[in-house]
Structures are given as structure tokens and as C-alpha cells.
């Protein structure tokens, strides 16, 4: 039986190079399995071999997506593979984005089956689940033991060209494709059954999950701006020069709180952008373009607004999961409420 050749893609951490300090390494390859690749190999059938591993730093990838994807695709091609497996990335946002992008590029350029694994809230999942198969995993590497066999199983079905069942049956993230099937019972009987389960408070499975249109009800308008204390919050990544809190350029794991007492204008010597999702040139030249401190100080002087709160909050909205965005918003909101801020100007990019 001809051997089935597999390449495995990993980030700097799982590729055993280093932690966050090595997140800027450029892509390279090596023979055979590395790190979790060894466990993955054990779960694959005897005729399926991980012949090579390609490793790349998460920060380098996310800041150079096209170039990195190209380079990685050629490194992968060098092994003449029949299949690419990436990750699993669990809930690591930048790693998830990299796995998704690498899978998509390899699928398109090399025309081979690809598969990766992620937690469903990983921004990479949202971005790539319609393009590539993503096995559902837990939210941290503590679940590696469960993720590896699941990843291997789907990988084998894909490389053998087997027709896949629904996302619920096969354990991959729903790709948003509706396909007709014949159930055992007619629809009306299924409806009666579902209604009785719902009335009794039992679990039931809807046949069509509603699309989620997240709506936030606006608060009532501020009646008198000239008396109001306003605060600035941004997801545009504007931080003091040097990014002292090391807010990530993508999939930010935190937000920062910065003192602008006496600051009337942001300059290229004092502020910069940490956001990796847009061309930084104009924001770096004048960060007021994203965080309008200068305009608000002017309005404060003119007494058009009561005052500008002396602290602003910033994070990077690039690839931030909805769950994290909610978390930061609640935390920031609580603090600003304590400071008796009447309104917030939120800028994003």
C-alpha cells in the first residue's frame, strides 16, 4: 500500500522553539513529527506518516499573513504531502488564525485535503470554518489528550476521500452549509416531539439554529453635553510609545488604561498603534486620527463638553473573540461607571 504523506503545521510553542519571546520566528521546516505531532502519529493508521513539520511564530504569521502563507505553502509542498494537519490551536487566537490561513492556502494551492482543530470561540474558527474543516476541541491545551485522536480521525476520513456526515455527527465546526436529509419521522411528528421536550424542560435539538443578530439597546442620549464627563475608549490599538503593556497586535489578551492628564495632543514621539490589522503609517504619524484626544481637549476648552476623563482605555480589536470583547467591555464599563463618566466615545478601525 502506498504510504500517505502528512505535513503538520505548528506554532513556535508547540514546535518546541520557545514561548511568547519566540513568536516572531520566521517559517521553517524539519523532518518527521515534532511535539504533539508524535502523539498525532500514534493515532494515525500505519500507512499514514507525518513526514515533515512546518513551524512559524504566531506574531510573525499574523503580521505578515500573505508572505508567511506563501512561504509555508512552499515548505509544505517540499514534502510532497497528501494531507496537511494544523494545530490544534484550542483557544489561542493568533495560532488559530494562522492554522486556518495555512490550511486555506494549502488547500487552494496544493489541492490536498487539510484539517485543523480549534475551540469554537477561537477567532480563527469564525474566520475559516466555511473554508476548511475544523475539528471541535476544548478551550485549552489541557484537552490535548482528547483533541489529538479527534483530529486524527477526521484527517484519516478526509485523506481517504470518504464522504463526511453532518457537523454534529463528525465533530467538526458547522460550516454553515444546509443539506437536505430524509429523517425517520415526518416533520409534524418531529415538531410534536420537540414541543413536548421543550415544555418539559428537556434538552432538544433545533433543526435550524437561528442566525444571531447581536443587538445592544442604546442608552438614552445625554441631555446636556456641556456638563458631561466623557471618556475615550478604543479598539484601534493606540498605546503609549513602546507599547508598555505589550498588547498583542492581534487576538489581544488584555486592555490597557493610560493616563492623559495634561495631554492635549498625541504625537509620533509619544504614542503609536499596536494594531496589526491595518496599515499603521497614518496612526503612527498622528495617533489622534484613531483616538481623538486633540479634538476632545479642544471641546473641553470651549466648554462644549464638561470634561475629558484623564484616563483612556485601549485594546486591539484585530481578531478579538466576541467573548473577550464582552469581557473587556464589562471591565472597562465598571471602572468608568465608578468614575462617574456620563458617556464614552468608542473608536474602532
Amino acid at each position, binding site marked *: 500500500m502506498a504510504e500517505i504523506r502528512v505535513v503538520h503545521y505548528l506554532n513556535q510553542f508547540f514546535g518546541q522553539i520557545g514561548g511568547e519571546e519566540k513568536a516572531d520566528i520566521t517559517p521553517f521546516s524539519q523532518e518527521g513529527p515534532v511535539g504533539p505531532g508524535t502523539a498525532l502519529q500514534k493515532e494515525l493508521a500505519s500507512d499514514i506518516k507525518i513526514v515533515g513539520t512546518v513551524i512559524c511564530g504566531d506574531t510573525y504569521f499574523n503580521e505578515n499573513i500573505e508572505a508567511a502563507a506563501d512561504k509555508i505553502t512552499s515548505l509544505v509542498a517540499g514534502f510532497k504531502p497528501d494531507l496537511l494537519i494544523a494545530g490544534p490551536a484550542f483557544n489561542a487566537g493568533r495560532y488559530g488564525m494562522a492554522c486556518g490561513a495555512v490550511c486555506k492556502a494549502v488547500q487552494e494551492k496544493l489541492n490536498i485535503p487539510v484539517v485543523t482543530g480549534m475551540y469554537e470561540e477561537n477567532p480563527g474558527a469564525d474566520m475559516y470554518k466555511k473554508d476548511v474543516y475544523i475539528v471541535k476541541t476544548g478551550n485549552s491545551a489541557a484537552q490535548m489528550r482528547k483533541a489529538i485522536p479527534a483530529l486524527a480521525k477526521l484527517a484519516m476520513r478526509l485523506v481517504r476521500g470518504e464522504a463526511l456526515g453532518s457537523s454534529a455527527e463528525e465533530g467538526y465546526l458547522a460550516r454553515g452549509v444546509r*443539506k*437536505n436529509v430524509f429523517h425517520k419521522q415526518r*416533520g*409534524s411528528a418531529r415538531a410534536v416531539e420537540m414541543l413536548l421536550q*421543550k*415544555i418539559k424542560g428537556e434538552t432538544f435539538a*433545533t433543526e435550524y*439554529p437561528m442566525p444571531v443578530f447581536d443587538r445592544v439597546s442604546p442608552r438614552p442620549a445625554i441631555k446636556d453635553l456641556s456638563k458631561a464627563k466623557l471618556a475615550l475608549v478604543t479598539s484601534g490599538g493606540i498605546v503609549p510609545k513602546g507599547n508598555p503593556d505589550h498588547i498583542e497586535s492581534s487576538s489581544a489578551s488584555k486592555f490597557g488604561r493610560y493616563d492623559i492628564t495634561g495631554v492635549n495632543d498625541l504625537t509620533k514621539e509619544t504614542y503609536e498603534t499596536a494594531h496589526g490589522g491595518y496599515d499603521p503609517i497614518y496612526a503612527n504619524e498622528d495617533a489622534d486620527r484613531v483616538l481623538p484626544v486633540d479634538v476632545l481637549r479642544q471641546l473641553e476648552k470651549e466648554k462644549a463638553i464638561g470634561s475629558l476623563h484623564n484616563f483612556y482605555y485601549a485594546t486591539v480589536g484585530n481578531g478579538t473573540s466576541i467573548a473577550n470583547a464582552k469581557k473587556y467591555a464589562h471591565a472597562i464599563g465598571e471602572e468608568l461607571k465608578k468614575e462617574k463618566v456620563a458617556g464614552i466615545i468608542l473608536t474602532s478601525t
Partner: protein
Amino acid sequence: MQLELGHIEVKDVQFGAKTEFRNGTVFINKNELLEILKNEHFSKIELDIVHPGDAVRICPVKDVLEPRVKIAGSGQIFPGYFGNAEMVGSGRTHVLKGMTVLTVGTIVGFQEGIIDMSGPGAEYTPFSKTINLVISADKKEGLFQHEHEAALRHTGLKAARYVAEAARNAEPDQISTFETRPLSEQLNQYPDLPRVAYVYMLQTQGLMHDTYLYGVDVKSILPTFMYPTEVMDGAIISGNCVSACDKNTTYHHLNNPVIDDLFTRHGKDLNFVGVVVTNENVTLLDKERSSNFTAKLVEGLKVDGVIISEEGFGNPDADLIMNCKKIEALGVKTVLITDEYAGRDGASQSLADGHPLANAVVSGGNANATIDLPPMRKIIGHIDAVNIIAGGFDGALKKDGSITVEIQAITGATNELGFNQMGAIEF
């Protein structure tokens, strides 16, 4: 209100000297029926009988009906329609089971459908499994659309009534009894069982998009309460053909599977208290009014849950969601039955509206999925209609007679009363 429904199993349908039921066969006097159906609006009327497995394609189909006749109890089948205003749903009704009467002919609009009696298309329609008396009526030149639609509707109803007379003196093979007591009694009949009601949404968007209740255009009604058995006697008839896959034919109304399945479990694990029928008008004011009124009626029924079935798609998705969220707001649990328009690749959003409270949905399938139908030896109707009916497109009909079309064009394919086993799931 109690109704005995007697099923007379039809093993065959043939033309014969006298219209009667004999030894499992329905005989139809062709000339007598043609004489009754003769109509100034039609240039030609023809009758055919087709059987399951025949290499026949019928298109464009308007309505499908089932012959039923009242043996005892007040009123007659299709009440209000032929001038009799008595209430129906009680006594005894005979059904010729296993056959239909269906109308085809010059296309009225562009929503009529295809029925294949064999081949891959047969899987998607329930009417490939019934013996069908096909009435092809071609219109005269200059006939306006609304007159054409009305004439065809009358034709189908008259023919169904005529054929049903054969069942009057026949002995049913099976009799089922259905009973719903007056509301205050019914609510207390099974005190330990959850109470449920059925919210029955009807297509009412205008010409060729209409439905009739006791002969009244449902566009003009306010939502109202009905006994489930009234539906079994034809209180609701179809005046629409849009789209073929999810329009409720008169046959579907007569055989409403939600009512049937609720009755199956009635007294065992639920208490089925009755039906609220409502419309799907096109203005926002009407939508708000009807959904408010429906919620008010449901509240008055003091039920624990309702099943809501939609008819049609797109515009009425808004009515479906309004009904759902207003009823859920009362603390009454809802399950919705609908179909989907997720695009040919299945990747588009299936419904035009949504709400987190609509968390229990049964689907009749994606109507945009395509199917290849082989050429058929015999066509009844006008096959080039395939190029313009909903689900079809210019070029859908190929030179060799084969057809590529969305299942949207197949009569009954994604029925939203939950008539079929087909549904859709997430891949």
C-alpha cells in the same frame, strides 16, 4: 365536536360507465364529469388517470385535492364555498384514500409545480404515491389571471366533490374518531397533561397567493379559533400556488399532519385544545395586528405550548417570527415548522428573519437544492412552463426533455406542515 373519518382504500381508478366504487376501484364516468366541468373560460378540458410508477410528468400543477364526502353531521365538504354556510367537523365523513384529483393546464402565474410519477423526482412529492385523476384545462385567449385562477380552483373543487360521491355508500376499511370538546371542557379533560394548541398560518399575499376559510378570503379575516376536525372536512382550501414546494395544497389542508400527529398523542401525553388560524398579509400593520391578535387568542387558551406552521417563505418569515416572539413572551413554548431558502450551495441564511426565542425549529428542507430530472415518456400539461416557474430558470428544460431545476418547483417537496420526512441539517 366529534368526527368519524372513514377511509375507503382505493386500489385503482378507471374510467367506466358509471361513477361508483366497486371492489376497491373508483370508476369515473368521463363524459359526465367533463360535462360538469365545462366552463366558458376553458378552450379545452381533458381527463387522465396516472398511477405510481408511470413514466409521466405533470406540469404545471396548480392544486391537488382529495375526494371526501359528508355522510352524517352538518354541512358539506368545502363549506361556504358552494353556498352552504353550516359548520362542519362533526358526524361522519368518507375519504377515498390513495387517490387525488389534481389540476394542471395553461400556466396561471409562475408558481405552479412539477409532479413526476417515477424517477428521482418522485421521491420529493407525496403525489407520486397516489393514483391521480388529472384535469388539464387550457384557458381561452384573453382570460385575466384572477379569472383563470378562480376557474381552475372551482374546477378542482367541483371534480373532487363529484368523484367523492362514489364513496357515499362504500364501507370504510378503517374508521378513526377525532374529538375536541368545547374549550372550557377540553381544557379540563386531561388535567395532568400539558395543554397544546396549533397556530395555523395561511398564505394570503394576494392573487394566486390566497387561501379560503369557509369560502372567505383569509386576507380579510382576523385570526380565529377552529376545531381541528373542521379542517378535515375542507374548511380551508387553497387558492395559491407559491412556491410549488411549500404551498399547502387542498390535499395537505385536508390531511394536515400537525393535527393528525397531535391527535395521535392526545389524551396520552398532551391535551390538544384546538386550532388558531391566522393569515400572512403583506402590510406591516396587518402583520402586527394579526400577530397581536393571535397571541391574544393563544393567551386566552391557557396552553403550555403551540406548534406554529408557516406557509410560503421570505415575506411571511416576518409573520412567523412575530407570532413566535409574541407567544413566547406570554411564557408559552413554541415550535416552528418552516422550510429554508439557503441558496443552491446551502450556504446562505435560510430565513429572512430570525430571533433568539425561535430556538425550536423543524425544517422541511432547503428549497433551493437542485435536482436533475430525466426525460419522461409522457407529459401532461405544458412542459416549457419549467423555464419560468419558481425554482426553474431559462434553460431548465433541455432539448432531450431532461430538466435541471430547484426542488422548489416540485409540488409538496418542502411542505411546512411537516408532511414529509425530508429536512435539512448543518454541515
